[in-house]
């Protein structure tokens, strides 16, 4: 049977992409090494608003821009609020072009576009932090993609390869419905931790190590003996990644 990455050419099954062959019984798929993000329902994504018109359009490294409907966000003022025409006019006050959001995939349209929702307090607009864009295939699927790392920063590992690093918020505030962003200055030590994490992510990505909370944390720990800026040097990168992989092996056994 033909799966993804194949097509039938004169009754013969032929690969259309270069990559790894996967077989499930008689179904044959070929998955390429790197592609755009193929969203599935329930995936956590980080994206950027590109257009505001009745619905928000979100760039998520996918084949088509994803949509975020007005009816699939939590507006300030409680769950059970009706959406009026006025809300439609004030959409830009909640999310503007260029804003970053975290969201979950609600459904996939027939043409492959994703429909997102932010109807949970953990999703919503992202404030101060750093975005790292990586390949979607490097993100390990897990129960949760939101982590408060013990090193003093938090991380959102979007399934679409966009990773958001931000200082751990002091306490959870909710009445603004996820559109509130803190503009408090971030302390130097927090910024250093975030920059180090960013460089660690790039190091892991360069060596194609799967990203999840443990691997990021181990990489962070192994990088502590170097300066933040040195982490990007190829030889230091290799050393750190090697140490991380050792720690991961020990952790597994």
């Amino acid at each position, binding site marked *: 049977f033909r799966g993804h990455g194949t097509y039938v050419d004169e009754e013969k099954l032929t690969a259309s*992409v270069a990559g790894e062959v996967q077989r499930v019984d008689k179904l044959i798929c070929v998955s390429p*090494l*790197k592609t755009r993000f193929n969203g599935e329902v329930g995936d956590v994504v980080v994206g950027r608003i590109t257009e505001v018109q009745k619905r928000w359009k979100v760039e998520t490294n996918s084949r088509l821009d994803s949509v975020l409907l007005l009816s699939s966000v939590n507006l300030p003022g409680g769950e059970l609020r009706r959406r009026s025409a006025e809300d439609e006019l004030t959409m830009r006050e909640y999310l503007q072009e260029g804003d970053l959001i975290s969201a979950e995939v609600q459904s996939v349209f027939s043409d492959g576009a994703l429909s997102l929702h932010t109807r949970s307090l953990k999703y919503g607009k992202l404030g101060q932090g750093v975005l790292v864009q990586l390949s979607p295939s490097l993100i390990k699927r897990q129960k949760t993609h939101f982590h408060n790392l013990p090193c003093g920063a938090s991380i959102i590992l979007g399934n679409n390869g966009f990773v958001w690093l931000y200082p751990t918020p002091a306490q959870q505030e909710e009445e603004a419905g996820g559109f509130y962003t803190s503009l408090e200055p971030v302390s130097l030590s927090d910024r250093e931790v975030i920059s180090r994490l960013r460089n660690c992510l790039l190091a892991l990505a360069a060596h*194609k190590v799967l990203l999840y909370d443990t691997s990021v944390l181990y990489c962070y720990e192994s990088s502590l003996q170097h300066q933040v800026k040195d982490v990007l040097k190829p030889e230091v990168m290799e050393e750190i990644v090697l140490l991380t992989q050792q720690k991961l092996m020990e952790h597994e056994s």
Partner: protein
Amino acid sequence: MAGLELLSDQGYRLDGRKATELRKVQARMGVFAQADGSAYIEQGNTKALAVVYGPHEMRGSRSRTLHDRAVINCQYSMATFSTAERKRRPHGDKKSTEMSLHLKQTFEAAILTQLYPRSQIDIFVKILQADGGNYSVCVNAATLAVIDAGIPMRDYVCACTVGFVDETPLADLCYTEENGGVSSLALALLPRGGQIALLQMDARLHQDHLETMMEAAMIACKGVSKVLDEVVRQHLQEASALSRD
């Protein structure tokens, strides 16, 4: 043509190749991290760089959106230092626009565009050094870049130019041969099925010779496809070895 003897009595060409011999092909995939796919190729002294972005949402004019397949957008350009005389306009002149159109037609035939409705695939090709067969080298570079981007294709698209001298077809012309008054044709082939993606000829040729030219071109294209296949396999092996350890 006076002076230049393109094919010697012993059957050798100006650069010492035999009539059916291709130039040395060297290629690398994945040269840029930022793009979805990229490739660099050297065919003799002709060097080209190809970059692919997409499939992504339509940018620019929304009206060009197709509801059943992806739009392919090609741009061909030549670096100002690519030719012997410095070029004034690296892209946008008549020749490059025509070349862009040819590339677009070639890849519309090869890429499975119906899998990505309402999206756009950008292919940018740049000639860094021009020494004949620009179109074919661009096609070969773009093929590798598209494969690197993980975009499904029917087959490799391989292209080659063929000239006709002294009743013999010459494969993979270089610059001096191209400008030596040879009637030449460029062929882009999907080698597995032998389908022709694009055939271009703007010189005069006797009808009887066309058949032999086409045959020589097909053989040359299949030779190119072997090389490209090797490059892709090598690249895949390297990449998978990296992710395993």
